């Protein structure tokens, strides 16, 4: 009984949103410099290095806090993770695993890009790969602008799901471009 009570009290308050943890208003636009600064300030208080001498129970709280703060920071720092998280806070599932019904034109574009990555990798064509990375970034910028607009309005919130799914495709494309660069280097 008492152990149970302590467990509840001792864990960081996971019900608090990541935005609240960092003192940021809930929204897609974020003050990156303030986020970085608050992250470091909180880590200075909770990082396990400050509890190397502490009793085990306190080391555990510190570790939980530090993990929670790292997770929150990672989520808010990345615009895609932030967008996904905002949807989650509104109870909207992005259906990234289940929903494969993407617009045909988008899918064709994705296939073209992936083929281009494979071709550049086979041909050891650095320039082509760089161009692909540029095209990808430009497409991402467009989609992030769209995402910001969709998330700022309750009426368009649900449309943001597809934008998040599109951005996930681009993130994967980015990973493939990186893998191709690595393969070409070694």
């Amino acid at each position, binding site marked *: 009984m008492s152990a149970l009570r302590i467990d509840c009290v001792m864990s960081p308050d996971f019900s608090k949103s990541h935005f609240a943890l960092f003192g940021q208003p809930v929204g897609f636009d974020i003050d990156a410099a303030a986020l970085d600064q608050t992250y470091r300030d909180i880590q200075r208080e909770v990082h396990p290095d400050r509890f190397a001498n502490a009793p085990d129970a306190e080391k555990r709280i510190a570790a939980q806090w530090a993990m929670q703060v790292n997770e929150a*920071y990672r989520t808010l720092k990345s615009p895609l993770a932030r967008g996904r998280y905002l949807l989650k806070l509104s109870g909207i599932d992005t259906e990234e695993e289940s929903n494969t019904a993407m617009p045909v034109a988008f899918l064709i574009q994705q296939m073209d890009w992936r083929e281009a990555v494979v071709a550049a990798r086979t041909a050891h064509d650095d320039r082509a790969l760089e161009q692909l990375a540029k095209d990808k970034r430009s497409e991402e910028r467009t989609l992030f602008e769209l995402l910001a607009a969709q998330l700022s309005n309750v009426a368009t919130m649900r449309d943001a799901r597809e934008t998040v799914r599109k951005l996930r495709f681009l993130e994967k494309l980015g990973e493939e471009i990186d893998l191709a660069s690595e393969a070409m*280097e070694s």
Partner: protein
Amino acid sequence: MALLQIAEPGESTAPHEHRLAVGIDLGTTNSLVATVKSGTAEVLLNQEGNKLTPSVVRYFADGGVTVGSQPKAEQADDPANIIVSVKRFMGRGMADVARYGALPYKFVDAPGMVKIETVAGLKSPVDVSADILRALRVQAEAALAGPLVGAVITVPAYFDDAQRQATKDAARLAGLNVLRLLNEPTAAAIAYGLDNASEGTFAVFDLGGGTFDISILKLTRGVFEVLSTNGDSALGGDDFDQAIAAHWRKLHGLASANHKDLRRMLMAARAVKEDLTTADDALAEIQLSYGQTLNVKLSRAEFHNMTAHLVERTLSPVKKALRDAKLSVDDITGIVMVGGATRMLHVQAAVNGFFGKPLLNNVDPDKVVALGAAIQANVLAGNKSGDDMLLLDVIPLSLGIETMGGLVEKLVPRNSTIPVARAQEFTTFKDGQTAMAMHVVQGERELVKDCRSLAQFTLRGIPPMVAGAARIRVTFQVDADGLVSVVAQELTSGVVAQVDVKPSYGLTDAEIATMLQASFTYAKDDAAARVLAEARTDAQRLIEAVQAAMAADADLLSATERALILQEIERLHRRQSEGDAPAIKASIEKLSTATETFAAKRMDKSVAKAMTGKSLDEIAKIGL
């Protein structure tokens, strides 16, 4: 807890007796132990008056052990029983050590990692490393005239979980309290950064005797934030020696050299390699068995040519680290060179050529890691408030779990800031399935067989359901030492399986304790006296910390809580004056438990302060 560390500035929480803590650089070639004395980090001298202790251990048939320069000098006399560069074997299997070239040891396959057959019996790399660490502990305790409170042990940033766990076990076997495993490039950055008051984004290029690390760090006002790390835990100065020795063997038709000759050639190769950092040509005379003398020579150009592929191998991890940090060479403020192998001129030229920037090597590349570890140890031991320094390090390799078809599903990507916890849900794939096997792996490849296997365990007692109905949450945790633990839980029933990921050679805490007690270097009374002294000190510190916290944050305590805490303090005081260490420890735990709610409230308060952008320091300054 925090009770101690978040005390208001100027409010001393303990009468400051200096707690003896050291940083240990457990290197492939040499090991060093350093400490902070009167605010300055310095390397301690060993009995021979040297700062570097060769990481060489000799075993004798009568159970005797020697460590350091003596066995190093004798290497060629008894190569099978003189273990050199044991760090390369930590947490490694037969297939791994086979890649290191010809070595004069009789390796025996064992679960988790190889063992070496010696006249004193089978020795695991953990045993050998423990012998080195024990010698360093004895050296430090002699130099500092007292028992150590703890040590920070450095490991290559690219060490995986098995290698880290093996290092920690070795330290505990050597009777050391491990305050933290610290990544070598991060340690170097601390020593370098604090010494030069540097700000900016730095690359730490650390090529040691057997391992290579590259870390990219951002330094801002005492914060050391690792953005990415990469490396090759099987590439180092030893490989350059091997290349030279292989060249000579081929040139002189000595393909099947015996162990003694092999060791002599490696020693000559090392000497020649070192000479070539200052000379264009180097000569060596190798006394082979059966009275044969081999005169060898090598020019710098030849050496650079035959090892260009090794230098090239360092650049691919550098590129990957930059890419992961989302940076280009132009973003790098400077390159800190660490490790004896960075003295090789073609290594320096390659790094300089890649970054197009001057290299920073004004802190001795052999000592910088130990000095950084000492600074961290001093903070962790509580000699210095950690307010002005914060290390944010990362996990070097992704963690994942085996899914259908031998594929890896990554749960924690490489370069995640630690400590980190990440959960993912899985489900059953058969109707009525009541157990699920979990296979935890580490690495970047897509197939399980290409990654390193960390642990396998089975979650049992899942209530029978139709396929896909069970919800199994697997949570990975990586602590601040970079060590992994995994919990699997079936959410509909609450069935839990937890494993600390231990390498399969599996030393449990109890086994380590038994081995420690059995160790002849540890007189039993000594150990008991030490345990009691430590328990008393811990009790004193906790009491003082709690009292200071109660004075600072009386408003956070209810009358009941206050009464309970005071009662436990009183009890601990009584236990302290008796001489029973386990009773003191039990009482410490009770007081600690009694203050948990209070500690959590204080933590909430300090986080709230940090969040509003005012650190306790700043609040104190405003107060002034």
